[in-house]
């Protein structure tokens, strides 16, 4: 596995004429789980995409081990970091095994097509994601959670130190969300892989992240351990949401309870 230090230097990102991220300096913590949080449209997916060179910087640069990522060979970058984009769609009928095999693409040459190493990496990716039994099933026949695991297996087969995932839990029910996050947690714990996620569920983000990066106003509003940086003011400034920050009774991590309307059993004048 190739070590990767990912940094940004006064990075500015934009879609068409609209600037989404402005002059951002950031260094990704190695061997940790980092989660990007922020309101819709704050640029967290955009930032993640640019870290994986899916989006070219308007200004500034993304550095991989101190070198501008755009100056590196694309296959070289693909051996250092893998990206699982948001809501990917595989061709109809593609099997899990054939999808995961694609993870070895950066290692293929016209003179040498498929090696034992490739086979080994694909098999261990399938084992890690518990998909060995399903490897001959077409992707479109799987459940949402299994499908997401297959895309993670594709990233694992790429054999990179760093894996970036754009909203890997979207469209999954709670059980499958936890299943996917547990898988990523284990990959970090057991193999020391650097994991970067975009997540919408704050309480799950605070439970799984060693480091959260909260984005607001085209910049990083705050970054750090969730238990050190999550406050009512922080949630209000980042999400324009009034809330109470409590502690998860089981995990001890910060727990956000949003204010708003709804039934309130504590209020005495509540009509039954």
């Amino acid at each position, binding site marked *: 596995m190739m070590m990767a230090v990912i940094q940004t230097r006064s990075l500015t990102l934009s879609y068409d004429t609209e600037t989404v991220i402005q002059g951002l300096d950031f260094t990704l913590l190695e061997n940790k789980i980092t989660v990007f949080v922020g309101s819709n449209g704050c640029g967290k997916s955009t930032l993640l995409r640019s870290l994986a*060179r899916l989006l070219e910087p308007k200004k500034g640069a993304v550095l991989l081990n101190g070198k501008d990522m755009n100056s590196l060979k694309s296959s070289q970058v693909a051996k250092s970091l893998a990206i699982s984009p948001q809501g990917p769609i*595989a*061709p109809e009928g593609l099997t899990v095994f054939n999808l995961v095999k694609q993870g070895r693409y950066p290692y293929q040459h016209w003179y040498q097509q498929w090696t034992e190493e490739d086979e080994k990496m694909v098999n261990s990716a399938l084992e890690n994601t518990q998909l060995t039994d399903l490897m001959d099933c077409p992707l479109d026949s799987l459940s949402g959670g299994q499908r997401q695991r297959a895309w993670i297996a594709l990233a694992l087969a790429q054999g990179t130190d760093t894996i970036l995932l754009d909203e890997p839990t979207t469209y999954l029910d709670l059980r499958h969300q936890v299943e996917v996050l547990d898988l990523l947690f284990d990959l970090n714990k057991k193999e020391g892989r650097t994991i970067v996620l975009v997540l919408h569920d704050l309480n799950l983000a605070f439970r799984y992240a060693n480091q959260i990066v909260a984005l607001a106003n085209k910049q990083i509003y705050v970054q750090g351990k969730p238990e050190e940086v999550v406050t009512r003011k922080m949630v209000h400034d980042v999400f324009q949401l009034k809330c109470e920050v409590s502690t998860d009774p089981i995990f001890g991590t910060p727990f956000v309870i949003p204010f708003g309307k709804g039934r309130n059993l504590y209020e005495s004048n509540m009509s039954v």
Partner: protein
Amino acid sequence: MFQLLHTRSLKIIGVIIGVLLLLCTFFLSIVLGATEISLKMAFDSFVSYDSTSTEQVIIQTTRVPRAIIASIIGANLAIAGALMQALTRNPLASPSIFGINAGAICFVVLAISFFPISSLVQLMWIAFLGAGIAALSVYYLGTLGNKEPTPVKIVLAGAAITALFSSFTQGMLVLDEAGLQDVLFWLAGSVSGRSLEMLLPVLPYILVSFILALGLAYHVNILASGEDVAKGLGQRTGLVKILIAITVVLLAGSAVAVVGAIGFIGLIVPHIARFLVGVDYRWIIPYCALVGAILLLIADIIGRFPIKPEEIPIGVMTSLIGAPFFIYMVRKGLRHE
């Protein structure tokens, strides 16, 4: 999705059966037609050619070139369709639906009507140019408004470009009725009356694009999982897409230069190939070549019978087979959504 041939050995056996079928249809194409020819006569014309025998002359100067051209162009169009469907991630993509044939024909008619062009090589380059311009216009129209070209937008853009180029073509023909005879066979699409001399200048380009298509197949597999995924895996997607587009224009342009507009082969055959071998383009491309060749030969043979001794142009035959298939595909697609 259903897939008939699952294992590698089944796929190899399928290729062998395909080659045998191709040889069978090739021989049928030589034997059947307005002039009945016996199998023995056909065989004799290869081993001991007798230039005094009318039948043998027909075989060697008409039937054989015609069968060779139908096979090669069938393969040609089918591969072009498969690559286009992969490039646009659109199951309805093909040179005829996307206006590429119409663009090539428009330029060919334009060139014949207004410039003293006689050499087929020049016509071929003009067909390439027309195909390329049509492809660019469809892609540009399809990406207008939103970043992602959706399948529906590209099909609409293809219909618009086809209509535009077809009306140009018709306009030119109205102005220059005398020139009509020269271009009529291009408009209908036909493999009859073509000599091998018309194929030879184009053949190198066709062979190069076949090799390009096979070389690109593995990269097409990766691109088919989505542009972001392919980029993430280190593919230079821009380069791969341009190479695919060049290959498509070479294939479609050379087909138009030799036989004119033959629709629907590029649409149907990739689906048949996928039904047989699944999603791997390293198998889809060779299967497209075989099935495309066989299908176009069959279409050509069938067209010889209904109005004997006249023939139905092959472009009309493929449309008769292809239009219902197109409707079936659209309906199937609608049900999925």
